């Protein structure tokens, strides 16, 4: 649909929150918790914190929770009964205040979860989620959205994108049919957008590398063990980068409860040594340098090849969360600049 551009002020936005809540939707937005900003359910606009460049975690748990019951099973008299999840019971969600990079990440997640056979839980959650992005007025040294096809005011992935153009006044771009539905019946809360310009209110993020260069560079570096060891020596092999990443989609399956119980899908990370360990004891990626290589290959080579979408949106979360300062922008630059 054609973008519908309007204006909305903070007071009207607070009213819109009430309308969404009375329509049965939960609102998940950035909130200050324990001195950090993270996505959590909020009761009102007042609880929303938009003054940080980024949240610690990505909003992916709205569509891909860190632990999700896939189905339950009941073993009785030699028969096993499977109880599927009731997709209609999944919560309707307004994901509010995420940055354009996070909004863009849903395309990467969807590409994985609907690649061969669509994942019904993921798809149902995504269909039930309205994405209300807020453009970035500021960026930091870890941001690189413009190098991977995004931008601080990019609308891709958002159903509605807000840009604060003055104190408490937002330009509202209603981008999708889902966005239009979300503001249905709320025309009175919006004003005209005549004369409003968002460009002057966006962070400046310089392009740091040419993304077309990364795939071929990775292909020629694949066997260069010394390069990967040099790049990854301080990496400790934890899962912080993968777990805060808005596009990392690897998971592990766990059964709980014995003969009757639940099958659970849990986040997993290619950075863990156990990730590829075979039952035989053989591990095709025994070294941390190989696991680090896999992380970059998957995002910048395999996903563009197979899913036609990059596995990185340049949000910089992994760099900020890394306990040992593995700054992904530096590593991707080193790959782009490596002599083949």
């Amino acid at each position, binding site marked *: 649909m054609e973008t519908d551009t309007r204006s909305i002020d903070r007071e009207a936005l607070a009213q819109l929150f009430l309308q969404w809540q009375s329509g049965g939707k939960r609102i998940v937005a950035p909130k200050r918790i324990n001195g950090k900003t993270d996505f959590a359910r909020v009761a009102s606009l007042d609880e929303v914190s938009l003054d940080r460049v980024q949240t610690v975690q990505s909003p992916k748990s709205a569509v891909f929770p860190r632990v999700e019951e896939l189905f339950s099973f009941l073993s009785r008299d030699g028969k096993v009964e499977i109880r599927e999840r009731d997709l209609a019971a999944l919560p309707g969600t307004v994901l509010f205040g995420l940055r354009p990079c996070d909004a863009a990440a849903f395309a990467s997640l969807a590409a994985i979860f609907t690649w061969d056979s669509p994942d019904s839980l993921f798809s149902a959650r995504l269909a039930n989620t309205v994405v209300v992005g807020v453009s970035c007025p500021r960026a930091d040294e870890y941001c690189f959205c413009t190098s991977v096809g995004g931008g601080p005011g990019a609308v891709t992935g958002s159903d509605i994108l807000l840009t604060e153009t003055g104190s408490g006044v937002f330009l509202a771009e209603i981008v999708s049919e889902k966005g239009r539905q979300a503001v249905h019946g709320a025309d009175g809360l919006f004003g005209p957008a005549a004369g409003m310009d968002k460009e002057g209110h966006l962070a400046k993020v310089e392009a740091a590398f040419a993304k077309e260069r990364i795939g071929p560079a990775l292909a020629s570096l694949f066997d260069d063990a010394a390069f990967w060891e040099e790049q990854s020596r301080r990496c400790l092999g934890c899962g912080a980068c993968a777990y805060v990443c808005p596009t990392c989609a690897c998971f592990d399956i766990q059964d709980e409860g014995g003969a009757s119980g639940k099958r659970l899908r849990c986040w997993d990370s290619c950075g863990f040594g156990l990730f590829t360990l075979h039952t035989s004891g053989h591990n095709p990626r025994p070294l941390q340098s190989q696991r680090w290589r896999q992380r970059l290959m998957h995002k910048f080579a395999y996903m563009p090849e197979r899913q036609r979408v990059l596995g990185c949106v340049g949000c910089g979360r992994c760099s900020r969360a890394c306990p*040992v300062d593995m700054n992904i922008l530096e590593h991707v630059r080193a790959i782009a600049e490596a002599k083949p």
Partner: protein
Amino acid sequence: MEALRSKARELLAGKTVQVVIGYGPGSGGGARAVFIREAAQADILVFDGTCQQNLAVYLMKPEVRKLGKAALVATPPALRTILQLAAENQLTDAALLVLAVSPSGNEVVPLATFAALEAHVAALDHGLGAADKAELETYAALSLERRRQFWEEQFSRCLKCYACRAACPLCYCTRCTVECNQPQWIPVPAHDLGNLEWNVMRAMHLAGRCVDCGDCSRACPVGIPLHLLNRKLIGAVFADFDFRSGMAAKADNAMSTFKPNDPEDFIR
């Protein structure tokens, strides 16, 4: 800083060590671990208040061990970590040269033997600072019920990314309890029970071993104050067994050593 750089240059040029593990400039005005293998690279070494990571964690990494004999730039907790690793038979004397650096970074004391390390560590102050002491006292003053609520709330945010484990130099098991599934001791999912069992198990495995470097809390992406658990246990071990970890290269493990004159009679 120059003292550190010239020492590193000397050690590498003279082939006394093959690698100097220290701090170099990192992102956001901070410092990060660097592995210097040539004298000419020693100029990137820095030492200031942002150099907090306990670099002894790298002594247990095969990727670093294979580089050869190392000199390690060590803060006070790293010094104690090395002695604790020695006490647990993970490091041998002479396999390592420790570079103890004064807080200003202007003075470097090379410690080539565990005996020298012990003497150096014995002279340091191991008490908590005023702010740390107040934080622990506030926490310890909570009722049992309030403490349970506190940890339930904290652990509800645990992602099970295991950054605490990875950052901890004393969590060096090649196969962690949480990765054993025959039987499954600790639930893998990051749900309430899984998170409680994981974090309590880790704290208990570090009781009498943790040297209070604080890297678990610093590593946690969601800001869980794990150091409070460790500090509480450090206090308990000291009170019950008069034992402080990381002070000697030969020491019994406080939690797995039985003495016939143990005042508790439940074990007899």
